């Protein structure tokens, strides 16, 4: 029986080469963004942001933040799924001033409070494009990255604070800023003890 001694012709080899290169290109294009995603996560819940979030948590858990008044933060979170926190919301002037100073020193850009379980908030974020626009794409990416926190808090926390920090390493104000993020659970029992004031003069 006569053997098939014909090998591949050059054109066939080239076609296969191009085909294999195309496959590698597709794989590269799909996997390369994952490396960028991983690098971006080094700015999520880093140690500086966590300690910064701790001090904002102290203000939010304090008596100067009237959480359960009618139409207040608790009601807004219940209806709107989140509330933006500002130092001016604090009812004690010294705490508000101290909070503003600390806010600046910690390079905080925005603070929001949601339920501890973020399922409804994240659903709203997905449904409402304008919400994502108001938070900014980078903060939205962080919010989407977070889990829903379906398992109740071991500490009995009911809410969650999420903070965006705008850092600038160089004293030159024109240099690029970068953003870091942190979240912390918030304990606001409807009655009982709240965290002592942060400011030294209250």
């Amino acid at each position, binding site marked *: 029986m006569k053997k098939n*001694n014909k*090998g591949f012709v*050059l054109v066939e*080899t080239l076609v296969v*080469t191009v085909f294999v290169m195309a496959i590698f290109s597709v794989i590269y294009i799909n996997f390369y963004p994952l490396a960028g995603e991983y690098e971006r996560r*080094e700015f999520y819940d*880093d*140690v*500086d942001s966590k*300690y*910064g979030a*701790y*001090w904002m948590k102290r203000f939010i858990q304090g008596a100067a933040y009237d959480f359960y008044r009618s139409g207040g933060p608790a009601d807004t979170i219940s209806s709107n799924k989140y509330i933006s926190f500002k130092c001016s919301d604090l009812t004690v002037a010294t705490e508000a001033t*101290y909070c503003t*100073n*600390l806010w600046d*020193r*910690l390079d905080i850009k925005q603070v929001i409070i949601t339920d501890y379980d973020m399922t409804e908030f994240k659903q709203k974020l997905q449904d409402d494009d304008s919400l994502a626009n108001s938070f900014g794409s980078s903060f939205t990416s962080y919010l989407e990255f977070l889990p829903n926190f379906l398992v109740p808090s071991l500490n009995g926390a009911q809410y969650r604070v999420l903070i965006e920090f705008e850092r600038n*390493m*160089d004293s030159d104000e024109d240099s690029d800023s*970068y953003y870091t993020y942190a979240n912390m659970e918030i304990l606001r029992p409807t009655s009982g003890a709240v965290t002592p004031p*942060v*400011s*030294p*003069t209250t």
Partner: protein
Amino acid sequence: MIKKLNNKGMTAIEILITFVIVAIIVVSMYNGISGLKTRETVASYKLSLVTYKNLLTKDIQDDLIKVGLTAVQSESMVELGKPVGYRVILTLRDGSRRILEVRQVFGCSAVDAAEVDDLCTIRGIDPNQSDEFSISYGPEGNLTEYPLPDLGHEEIQAYDGSATTHTIYSLQINEVSINTNDNIFSIRIVLSHPDLASKHSIDIVSPISS
């Protein structure tokens, strides 16, 4: 019966094209792999730096948060008439004191005698001075030194012909800023490394409660 052998070979043009293709693939792979190697090195530097920063920040913040900060005093450290860094004395609510010392001595980084004047002598740096960067923290009289991770260094030969060398580290304490305005203590220790730009710093911020 004589079996006919396959005597057909590749033509010169086919071999040439094959070599060109193989060469292109090897060159593109070399660039890719060398880029990955650089990224791996930078990632390992980052990891060392972040681990160092986390350890030091946690030790300091543990005291400031759990005990509470009531007063801060900062001063320059001077040795033989030259500034060598900063000392911060933190008084805690229980009356104890913690000391944070940042040693920042720049060595002479001139690589040849011609550069010594510009880079060292004019700035008051001894030509044989090594870099000295370290941070120490702890209770008064019992400081723990937190040596900066060695992310590369260079041994520079003395210019006077002697066999001595001095060391210049890639990771340096670039800037230290301390602020106690508005009853808020903040310290930023900026660490710089040529491969990491300067986006790494140790930042401690804490209210000063009376």
